């Protein structure tokens, strides 16, 4: 159900001189507003940040999706885009930034490293940011092309359109202690298991 203008059944913004009231579902209106003005918090760390900048620049033009307002302060941001690898040294930083963002908030994990640790299956790298903060959309690629990131953003918008403000559990703040794990230790270990070819690369000679 869309926005009905003046009860005429016509879509919003097309009729001049029509009565100045609309009927709609509250969920639709809220989600429509939220999905089309997502302010990203670009948590750009590595190579993916360069592709993120390319997405924001002229050729791919992120502004088409209501996202040109980069919010480098987490206080005014809606969606945290983790673009690039996340070493352990940076883990408390992303946790803090996520905690500082007000609800409603979403997270896009851009690229292989943010999603799984990527090629860096070693002592320095968090094996997927979902062990630190909850993630809504994973964008694969090393790095993802700007089109890939845009597709991820469109998926996030789709997800937002399906939300309901009556479902309070979606937007509940889970304020953890800064040092607490978000998941059970066994789950973190399991998520961080080596996979594919990397299991064979544990010997140095």
């Amino acid at each position, binding site marked *: 159900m869309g926005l009905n203008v003046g009860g005429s059944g016509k879509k919003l913004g097309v009729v001049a001189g029509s009565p100045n009231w609309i009927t709609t579902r509250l969920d639709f209106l809220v989600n429509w507003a939220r999905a089309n003005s997502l302010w990203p918090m670009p948590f750009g760390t*590595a190579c993916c940040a360069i592709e993120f900048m390319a997405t924001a620049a002229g050729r791919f033009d992120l502004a088409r999706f209501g996202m040109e307002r980069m919010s480098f302060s987490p206080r005014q941001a809606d969606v945290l885009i983790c673009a690039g690898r996340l070493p352990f040294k940076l883990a408390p*930083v992303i946790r803090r930034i996520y905690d500082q963002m007000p609800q409603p908030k979403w997270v896009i994990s851009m690229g292989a490293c943010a999603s799984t640790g990527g090629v860096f299956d070693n002592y320095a790298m968090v094996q997927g940011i979902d062990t630190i903060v909850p993630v809504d959309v994973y964008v694969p690629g090393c790095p993802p092309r700007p089109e890939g990131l845009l597709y991820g953003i469109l998926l996030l918008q789709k997800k937002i359109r399906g939300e309901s403000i009556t479902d309070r559990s979606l937007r509940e703040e889970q304020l953890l202690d800064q040092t607490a794990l978000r998941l059970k*230790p066994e789950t973190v270990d399991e998520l961080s298991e080596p996979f594919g070819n990397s299991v064979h690369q544990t010997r140095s000679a």
Partner: protein
Amino acid sequence: MGMNPTVQALRERFGPRIGRALVSCGDTIVYVDREAVREILRWLKETPGQQYNYLVDITAVEYRDPERPLEVVYELFSLDRKVPLRVKVELPKDQPLEVDSVVPIWQGANWLEREVYDMFGITFRGHPDLRRILMWETYSEGHPLRKDFPLRGRFSRSEQVRQALGASPEAHYSKEELSIADLYHDLPADMRERLVRQGVLEAGSRIGSRTVELTVGESGAALAPAWGGAGTAAAVAEEPDFGGDHMLVNIGPQHPATHGVLRLVVELDGEVVVRCIPHIGYLHSGFEKLGEYRHYNQIIPLTDRTDYLSPMANNVGFAMAVEKLMGIEITERCKVLRVIACEMSRIISHLIWMGTTAIDIGAFTPFLWTFYERERIYNLQEAWTGARLTTSLTRVGGMMADIPDGFVEGLREFCRTFPKTLAEVDRVLTRNGIWCARTQGLGALTAEEAINHSLSGPMLRASGVPYDVRKDRPYLDYETYDFEIPVGEHGDVYDRYLVRFEELRQSTRILEQALDRLPDGPINVDDPRVILPPKSAAMNDMEAMIFHFKQVMEGVKPPVGEAYFPIENGKGELGNYLVSDGTAKPVRWRIRPPSFINLSALPKMAQGHLLADLIAINASVDIVMGEVDR
């Protein structure tokens, strides 16, 4: 190449304190006594006729043989005589891993020695500020590049996450920051309360018991006594009391103007930077450790991701280091294609610098122009390698692929039209009053200081030192191309801008010449040790199939030896130092990171400037954190 005659001079001067000397892949290596290393290096730097005045790199090597001692490696270069020399010190494992610091000789050694300390646990006696640099201060798993340190660390992943989250920024607020705050007055109440809660402080205690001698000034003169220690009261009394403290401002690690996850702690007197302390390591990814677990050709995809602003040049640098190790001479066509790759990389690297620096100073439009030009290079790069950014272009002994149809025409078109965009940027920025006011006279370094800090690339040349690896240690036949090396005279932010701007023009010239001379022929050497046979041969010919199998399963195996190979990429001298023990995986893969070393001069450059200018100065360094932290 024979033995460097310096070895003979050293033996005459120092006698038994000079150990064995050998030549590996054309590089002369001389072992010296660990107790005399500072004296010997000072002699090498200051003696007429030797003048090894440029410290290229300090690193360490641990061999797989557990009996073999660790080695500390000093890579030297004489800017006047254009001669390299590698000095090594052996540290047996049954004795304390200690050696004298060379920071009193070269300021540039400061961060390099801290990195060796962090990664290998080697103590440098007399270092002014020996702390961990890449890992956090409370990191408890050990020293990652030691051979007994497992690739994935000692703890389980959940324990690692828990410890990392526990090392919250306040909890390991560096001791020197705390001492700065404490020297003047008490900490802010909320910070004190938080530190007590986290167990860093005891309730009711003062903290700054440790006087930090962080060297910012010249020749090892510590700044701290100016305010700290016994002189505190006097120093405070001399200054007019405006009722305010020196203020500590934390910038980063997540900040749009730090060009990545760099954290700067700035001590401010009003708006003037008294002291700037960079904290790095927030993007430490363990490249060098990973390299020890991979075949040589498998490392090439990793090199894309170190300096991701100029991936193709990194590919070339690494492949050439392996080729030096194996004594492979690449084909003529491959040489020219690699020159093209390097210069394209230099262009996109400088373009992103120009765009983001303009944003930092308040001009948004050049960012859109430079990104437009970057997209055009990306198109060519993608046609050639299949990737916009992670190119993995080279292989040991050749290239991953030849250039596709239409590439030459596309690049010619780029060379023809690119100067127009440059001219537009030139018109908007170069004589712009705001631009000049925000860049001229800022962060100036003299030639002597720049050399002393081991700077390289545009940072060094802006200070008037005409050192460019392409001219001074030529590779890929760069000596046969006609191009100029732009050199600045003031060494400030504006000169660095001018130098990079001119390099963009010169790179375009080199590209045109390379396209003109591009010869036909194979791109790969005809050597079954390193290059895979064609697929048809591998399927039909038994011998070719065996070579194919051996290479895929066992990898390229260079002989025992070591090689250091520098190239000039956009940031400066990018060196790859490889040590081989004859197996398919390197014992040590060291990247000599130009922007890491350039960044280490930031405290020196920022001192006395305004906070707003710190942003411009930091931008002028042209850092890329993937390479700074590796």
